[in-house]
């Protein structure tokens, strides 16, 4: 994730700067609890974030523009889940939260599915 910031275009005299890390955290919070998502981020990215003590949002990539944002969310899904339904739920939740909290317009939410987790995997890993 790059460390870009975006000045709020609606306040020309006293700009508001929003870190992409903040946007990523809002997105992570928004998609928490959506059915069918096993984990956000790849296993290695979560492990690296843990080693670094990173409290950010591994697996969420933010591309900030002047007054809009593109978001890529990497995740593993539970076997049997419908990816389009998960993607639509993510898109709705992320768009609502980010537009409400930051005022940025969400241009696109891309969902990147890098793994599928089977019930037998979950019993081994503890979810």
């Amino acid at each position, binding site marked *: 994730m790059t460390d870009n910031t975006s000045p709020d275009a609606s306040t020309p005299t006293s700009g508001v700067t929003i870190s992409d890390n903040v946007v990523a955290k809002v997105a992570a919070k928004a998609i928490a609890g959506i059915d069918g998502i096993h984990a956000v981020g790849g296993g*290695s990215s979560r492990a690296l974030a843990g080693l670094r003590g990173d409290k950010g949002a591994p697996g969420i990539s933010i591309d900030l523009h002047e007054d809009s944002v*593109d978001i890529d969310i*990497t995740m593993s899904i539970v076997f049997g889940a*419908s*990816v389009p339904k998960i993607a639509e739920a993510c898109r709705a939740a992320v768009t609502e939260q980010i537009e409400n909290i930051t005022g940025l317009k969400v241009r696109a*939410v891309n*969902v*990147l599915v*890098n*793994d599928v987790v089977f019930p037998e995997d979950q019993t081994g890993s503890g979810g």
Partner: protein
Amino acid sequence: MADRPKPSQTAPAASVRLATAVLLAVGGIFATVLAVSFAAAVLGWDFTPMDPLMSAGGHVVRAVLLVAALVILAGLVLSIARHGERSLWLRGEHGGVLVSLAALQRIAEATALRHPEVVRAEARLRERDGAPYGSVRLYARPLVDAARVRGEVEAQVRTAIDRVTGRETTRIAVKPTVLRVRQLKRYLP
């Protein structure tokens, strides 16, 4: 969203990260050896790090080791280069979904293995025109009707993948192999 490009790719698998790390390490070692050799030559030292390497073993051993190293490096480069091809992009109105084909292969194999007559399944999927296509090789129990198993598994696999992608575009060819009794032990999980 018309002007939003497809994301570069899904997060690289552990094997791709490992291949990248190995290639970087090999490149670093090679650059270091080269730098030490040049520095020694410039300073007039009677030292080169290549001497111990070149004097170890005979010509045959060194040749075999060199060829093996080149094959491994070529494999690593290939695995990294092909990483981007292994995903399926499902374009949407406000963003899309990029699905790893490896994940779809796992779904295809797991679905095939749920058929009671199948003891092993190996899926190979590719992407063409935004749709998954490929084959699933099945190893079925002895004496089963191969055509029946093929038809049943094909429908189940196609349904499972279509459910994940949300589109009825999957083209799957199921290739069953009916095992003989004496082969069964080798194929059982």
